[in-house]
């Protein structure tokens, strides 16, 4: 009855396109006119605080729920479920049958995506062995640690070698070691040609992994593009420590400069670093330390999504 999943010709267009997606739940508009494009073969981050509409957006892209308005195209299909055998999905709320063995749980997810059960079991064994969980293959999920269970679910997400992998908050609940493993796994899948979309409210993960990001705030896309482009929206930051507290050099320091740990911190003037350096030397600042830092994604996020959203994300990260 089941057919082996055959590799399909790779579409040349974007992996995912969304146009003016809207989702209303009663009087609440969870997603408000989101348009985005995910190029094939990229690692794409969806950033935003909880409640920003990330999960709803991903669910609409996957066809789990239908948009109130707008359209989407996933791997060339207007109905995402038509491409279900080429998609892997790890939901934010992880779920496995507690009594099921790890191997069977992975194979079950493969079978759901069209793999014959025998092949799914073979792949499950291989994946478990590759991830150091071979000894746990025939143990019920309830006996696994949280990290192991999460790994099992992730392996179930990629068992059918999907072309598009969608991960909703994949790092939440993982310790630092497992987070690093997951990052490596994501990079590995990307190297193998998969397109990866993951949502997160931890900007560091997106910064390390993503080529492109969408910043979502209050159901809207505040930015959709390359990470470098997001950073490029901000001027580089100068961190300066001087021997002299005052003098003629102070005239080149912008009025909105702030002090952090004995350093003056301010945006690099548009004239560039050389005139600044010359003015500091000529003005007798007595430079002890000077660093010109490229803004991070977090700074870009703050600027793009607004400080309130960033504060909310920082708080969620602490929780």
């Amino acid at each position, binding site marked *: *009855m*089941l057919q082996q999943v055959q590799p399909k010709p790779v579409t040349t267009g974007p992996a995912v396109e969304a146009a003016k997606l809207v989702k209303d*739940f009663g009087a*609440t508009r*969870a997603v408000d006119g989101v348009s985005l494009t995910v190029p094939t073969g990229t*690692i794409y981050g969806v950033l935003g605080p*909880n*409640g920003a*509409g990330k*999960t*709803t957006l991903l*669910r609409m892209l*996957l*066809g*789990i*729920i*239908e948009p109130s308005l707008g359209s989407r195209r996933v791997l060339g299909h207007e109905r995402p*479920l038509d491409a*279900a055998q080429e998609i892997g*999905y790890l*939901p934010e*709320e992880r*779920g*496995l*049958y*507690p*009594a099921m063995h790890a191997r069977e749980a992975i194979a*079950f*997810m493969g*079978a*759901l*995506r069209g793999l014959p*059960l025998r092949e799914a079991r073979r792949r499950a064994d291989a994946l478990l062995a590759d991830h150091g969980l071979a000894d746990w293959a025939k143990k019920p999920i309830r006996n696994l640690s949280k990290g192991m269970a999460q790994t099992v679910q992730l392996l*179930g997400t990629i068992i059918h070698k999907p072309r598009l992998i969608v991960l909703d908050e994949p790092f939440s609940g993982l310790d630092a070691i497992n987070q690093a493993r997951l990052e490596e796994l994501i*990079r590995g899948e*990307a190297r193998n040609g998969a397109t990866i979309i993951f949502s997160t409210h931890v*900007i*560091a993960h997106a*910064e*390390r*992994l*993503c*080529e492109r990001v969408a910043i979502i705030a209050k159901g809207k896309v505040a930015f959709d593009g390359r*990470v470098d482009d997001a*950073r490029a929206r901000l001027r580089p930051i100068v961190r300066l420590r001087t021997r002299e507290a005052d003098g003629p050099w102070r005239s080149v320091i912008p009025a909105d400069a702030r002090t952090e740990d004995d350093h003056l911190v301010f945006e690099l003037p548009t004239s560039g670093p050389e005139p600044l350096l010359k003015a500091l030397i000529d003005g007798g600042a007595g430079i002890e330390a000077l660093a010109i*830092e*490229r*803004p*991070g*994604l*977090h*700074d870009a996020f703050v600027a793009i999504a607004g*400080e*309130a959203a*960033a*504060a*909310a994300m*920082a*708080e969620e*990260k602490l929780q």
Partner: protein
Amino acid sequence: MTKLLRGAFVIGRRDFSATVLSKTFLFFLLGPLFPLLFGAIFGGIGASVANSRERPVVAVVASPADFARLAAARERLTAAVDPDRVVRLARFDAEPDLAAQQKRLLATRDPPVQAVLSNVAGQPQLVGSVRPEGTTAGQLRLILADSAAGREPLPLGVTRTQSSSGSLTRDRAATGQIGQMILFFLTLLLSTMLLSQMVEEKSNKIIEVVAAAVPIESLFVGKLFAMAAASLLGLIVWSAAGAGVIASLKAGGLATLPQPATGWPTFLALTATYFAMNYLLFGAVFLTIGAQASTVREVQTLSMPVTFGQILIFAFAATAVGSPNSGTALAAEAFPLSSPLAMVARAAQQPEILPHLAAIAWQILWIAVILRLGAALFRKTVLKSGPRLKWWRRAAKVVPMRIETRTTTEPLAPGS
């Protein structure tokens, strides 16, 4: 459609294995044995008390003198054979119309009359549900020979009959009623189990993984058919055990039970079909309810009125017993949720097959409609996202300027 069936097969296979291979399934199989065991214990006590009263008798249409000779001969026979195993005799005065009297006596239930013996002084005749070479006829020959007191005994003529038309109608109605009750209780038990499974599925958070991979209808259909298959397995075990019990308790086994109007094979096939229909109809309703609830408490709250509704529907369907062509019976046969139960009663009482084919098609249509509605409701109400906290609470939790500043001088290249 292929996707739906493929998804349903994967889900059904998992559910079936999870159910049948669990230790609790053994208890599920043993479940009906407990009431049977209690029934056997208490029934055994009651049976020994009621044994002499309820054991079938042979009605003897004879004068008191003739009957006294027969009774004395019977008494002598009990000296050699266990009295409980010797045929019991009851005397009746002769009536002008012997045939009518025989028919009336055979329909008598108190005491139940197995056969009527007449013309004991001349050419004895035995009429009833007895075999010419059977134990009853054999014992009567001995008794007649003994009572002949030296005379050459005349041969006993035996005419084998079916039950009377009156008792047959009653028996068939009883068969229909028993069929209805078995279907009702089984469905009640199974649909409640299905409901619990749905809640478990939701609490395990599997549903989103499934909904992203296959049409949501697959989940419903897969679960329904997995439980149907598991219950079918149970039914086979229970039926085999039940047939064994009947065979061990009653000589002749199942063949001695009153024959339904459609005949045993057709009746059993129809009962199995209507069990499946009834289960699928109520299962679809219960799945829909389970999909709306997120906690066991919510399920209990929601399922209570539905269970009462189920009981009302059972009562409605019960009107078809005894009068399968009445207005209420026809209404019960047409109403989708009571249709399978009412049609079981019809199968026991009426021989026509065509109405059953129409009813099964009608029920299948309604199963599809309920499943469709349930899936739509499920998708609409369950898989909606949003903040875990209500938005106004979340807004209140935002701390305006607590920003963790992260900068990096050499960000890692993407994909490195």
